[in-house]
């Protein structure tokens, strides 16, 4: 699975970076996105859902950041 690490990237740059990264993948490919706790994890999953990507899961890691798993939607 591809991983896009957006830790340390603030809103809304993290969303735009995620969007650009997802454009590189085929529709239906599963992607893992690493997000900071706080505003990032509150905003980015929702925005990606609105863009048409299918969210599969979201788990907080012991280190504090979140791992969002999604299936890339159509462009």
């Amino acid at each position, binding site marked *: 699975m591809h991983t896009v690490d957006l830790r340390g990237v603030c809103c809304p740059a993290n969303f735009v970076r995620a969007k650009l990264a997802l454009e590189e993948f085929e529709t239906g490919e599963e992607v893992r996105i690493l997000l900071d706790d706080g505003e990032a*994890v509150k905003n980015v999953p*929702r925005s990606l859902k609105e863009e048409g990507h299918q969210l599969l*899961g979201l788990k907080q890691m012991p280190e504090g950041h979140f791992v969002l798993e999604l299936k890339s939607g159509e462009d």
Partner: protein
Amino acid sequence: MTEQSEGPRIDLNQLKAGGFIKELGKDLFSVRLRVPGGRMPVSRLKKIVEVAEKYGGEFVHLSVRQSIELVHVDYRHISDVAEELGLVRQKIASCGARVRVPVACGGCEYNPKGLMDTQKSALEIDAKLFGTETGHHKFKVAFAGCPSDCPKSATNDIGFQGAVLPELDGETCIECGLCVKTCTVGAIVAKENEKPTFISERCIYCGDCIKVCPSGAWKARKSGYTVRIGGKWGRNPLIGTLVATFLPEDKVVDFVSAVLAWYRENSKGLGRVRLGDVMIGKGADALLRDLRQRFPDYVVETAMPPHVIDTQIGKRP
């Protein structure tokens, strides 16, 4: 465009309807434009600029209640201003003891936080009730799309605030914990690896849980407006009191009309008095009883009077 050689044509009825406000300078007026909800089509804005350049001053004023005000308009030109703006269907606003132009936030069409279509509601109130004489004092209406309440709805005679009651579909929940983290009022709690629990009495109906939920497990059970009545700002500010919850969009005009009718009826002989002060005098429950007859599903059980804000300047008798 007609030539100005025939001399001034001044329609005094135009002045009575309000929206033309005498300035300090000799012969000069400000012209308050009617911009319900603050939404100004760009095409119309172009015409306003043209009219302002022709008849107004070096600037326009963006008023606190979302109007564009043309300044320094000579009273001999007010009919021309109204007529030329009329070409783009730009109308003049009001002043005095009338229902004013409603204020609204951007709404929910493009603002991700918006829960209700405040723009639609503002346009409807503007179309059906703008300019209605109250017989007593001004009457202000505002629409906020969500509990963030940028328009400060409770400082209006009637303030509407978009609201949504959430409910959880446990089957769809992936137990990510985002809703618990997002809910700032502690209305969603969860133990480790368990589905969240909703504590409805703590909920402020902001919908953050629905918006943040990555799996769509939080859904809207119902949405509508939280309604507060009797607010005002100015010299003796009052915060409007809660009278209804989840009022549907299609009942907004009827609700405002019913409140206006109560205000007119109960202010008889009281002179120039705002709704909130009438409520303090008569008790908020008197208004609630009246509204409950027509809107039984939405009016709250009891209400406190509008809350007096102590500005700490000037002792009240």
